[in-house]
């Protein structure tokens, strides 16, 4: 067994065509960013699934904790006035 470090984990984001956003499609291990890009090309775009790839080392991603979902996301639930349907309009107004 080698005492060297293992290749770090990278997250892969692919833009399937211009005009669309990059979407997370999976992860892989690679020694550096160049290899991560090359591996991402081979693993995630073998059937023309992409025109652009982003890779970022997984450790650089900060994620919210699902245990805090209550305080993070529930306050939005009672703010119906942020949606257009909250406002009454006369029927004569067809589109607004």
């Amino acid at each position, binding site marked *: 067994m*080698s005492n060297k470090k293992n290749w770090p984990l990278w997250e892969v984001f692919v833009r399937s065509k211009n005009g669309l956003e990059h979407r997370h499609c999976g992860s*892989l291990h690679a020694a550096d960013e160049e290899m991560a890009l090359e591996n991402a090309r*081979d693993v995630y775009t073998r059937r023309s699934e992409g025109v652009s790839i982003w890779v970022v080392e997984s450790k650089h991603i900060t994620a919210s904790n699902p245990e805090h979902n209550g305080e993070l996301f529930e306050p939005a639930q009672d703010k119906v006035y942020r949606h257009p349907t909250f406002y009454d309009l006369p029927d004569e107004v067809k589109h607004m």
Partner: protein
Amino acid sequence: MSEEQIKNLEAQFEARIARDEKIEPKDWMPEKYRKTHIRQMSQHAHSEIVGMLPEGNWITRAPSLRRKVALLAKVQDEAGHGLYLYSACETLGVSREELYEQLHSGKAKYSSIFNYPTVTWADMGAIGWLVDGAAIINQVPLCNTSYGPYARAMVRVCKEESFHQRQGYEIMIKLANGTAEQKEMAQDALNRWWWPSLMMLGPTDAESIHTEQSMKWKLKRKSNDDLRQQFIDQTVPQAELIGLTIPDPDLKWNEEKGVYDFGEINWDEFWQVVKGHGPMNKERMKARVDAWEEGQWVRDAAMAYAEKKQERKEKRVV
């Protein structure tokens, strides 16, 4: 956490799954859910990786360029599928290295079908047609499994897998319509791969220890016996269509039930292979371990190069 709190969380968790909600990596989950998923997903990943070996055997000897590019692409897909699944598994907090270690030490299992040898070119046809056919039947229901990363990996895998089965069947069609010798080769491959393919769908429901819990977690959506029946019913007409005979004297259409009745499966053979006594178990593991160990210096060199580049970059900034 008190026992009662845990019970409470478990009840909420089961209710979420029952409502068809997905579970994501950072969500709370019972330890058993985590362990079961690591076991199943890693077994699945290992099967993809070991599954490259029997076919890799024929890449250099494919009979034409058309066959060769297809086989290469299929084996490359399998490497990719192994990777999607290992990554999904890693989201549950197990490292890639631990997973490899479990495979290489024999602690983890992989699909027993890959412990059979590939002795003729027709085996490439039979594997694609039968083994990938059985795998697809197993995998399609998993696209809706409860664990998000597993379900997403399976969607990708299933999309890619349908070409695998078609390329295999095409090989069989060509051979079955070829010379007498070629047709015999195709029949011989079917004879050897038929029963192991049926076994691949797992022990009978009565013997299967994981089914009930796995059904609840949507890790399994149909029982092994149902999947097997589906595979047989779908495959028999495909064999007839190309003039090959399923090697089962008891196989008969059951008009009343609308399915095929079939003969007894040799489960002793299945358990022997699972326990490591199949024709190729030792060779497969040796090939896998050799590849990993002989590649160590390449992985180390790549890491050393990456670190050196990083150091240089940092120096320049200073």
